[in-house]
């Protein structure tokens, strides 16, 4: 007799209800998106770091904006909010004034990346067991 598997449940740090609506149960596609996220984020984050070190605030704002969009596709809606606030500050603050926010953003990004790495591994395992 075939066992009925429970559906995949996303990590509590992520907006799981949104992710369920976004992926509509397609965990294979979710795995692909999480994998793309892990590949793309370092590329986009490099631009954030370069812009911050070059004190180029317009580019810093645009680069954080891109990361913000990316975070949305893996369910980090709260981090999107933080990115939005940082993005807004880029147009009115100096790099010195942004320093504390920048460090906080790096910490949150590191944590987010770690969560997604774990989530990607779980999705892979889940999909591997399904095949």
């Amino acid at each position, binding site marked *: 007799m075939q066992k009925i598997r429970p559906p995949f449940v996303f990590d509590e740090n992520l907006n799981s209800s949104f992710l369920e609506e976004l992926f509509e149960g397609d965990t294979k596609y979710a795995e692909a998106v999480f994998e793309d996220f892990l590949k793309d984020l370092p590329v986009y984050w490099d631009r954030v770091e370069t812009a911050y070190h070059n004190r180029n605030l317009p580019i810093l704002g*645009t680069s954080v904006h891109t990361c913000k969009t990316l975070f949305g596709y893996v369910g980090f809606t709260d981090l999107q909010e933080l990115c939005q606030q940082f993005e807004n500050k880029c147009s009115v603050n100096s790099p010195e004034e942004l320093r504390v926010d920048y460090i906080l953003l790096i910490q949150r990004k590191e944590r987010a990346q770690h969560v997604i790495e774990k989530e990607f591994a779980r999705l892979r395992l889940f999909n591997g067991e399904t095949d």
Partner: protein
Amino acid sequence: MKLSCIIVEDIQIAADFLRKFCEKSDLVEVKGHFLNVADALDFLDRERVDLLFLDVEMPGANGFDLLDRLTYSPMIILTTSKTEYAFNAFQYHVNDYLKKPFTYKRFVEAIDKLQQQSAEAAPAQPASAAPPADTEFLFIKADDKLIKVRKDDILFLESMRDYVKFVTPAKNYVTYSTLKNMEEKLNGQTFLKVHRSYIVNLSKIDDIRGNTIYILGNQIPIGKGHKEDLEARLNIL
């Protein structure tokens, strides 16, 4: 019939989602995906599409720059993660606005809305009902009646999202239609589209300064992609 579209989006994950949604819906055919405005314009110079999925913030030129340079008026759905563009979106007469990331349900709602808009803006007419091209007058449906207006009295037409405003020296008339529809009806006459939102009566132009047309005290912008067409239609000595 499927709508043809292109995706202008610099974030690959976002573009992949959109492509997947288009395929799943079977309502939209993706003709291409472009990571920046320059490549998209290059394509649009060669091919026409019904619909653009357009990101706003991209490296180099942004989505509104692309709209400024377009020489025709496809339907536009802005895809962005910033809500601050809503006012610009209204000014540029975009058809809908999808905040990223969006779900398949929201995508389908947007496409349904487009299909409804285009059906309402272009009602089918029997061929015999079409007026002859050279008719001196046209009838504008406004204020629950058909108002007879001399074409020669029309100074210019301005797009107002799902409506078009006809400006004459005496009065303005607003009718439920699109500028694209009006462009087709007035094609080949003294009218020319000079901007995404404006068609002018060439015989009414007082003067042109830089990228602005002056008609009886009204200032009409000239879109970047329309300047060449305008110059070709004017008797410049």
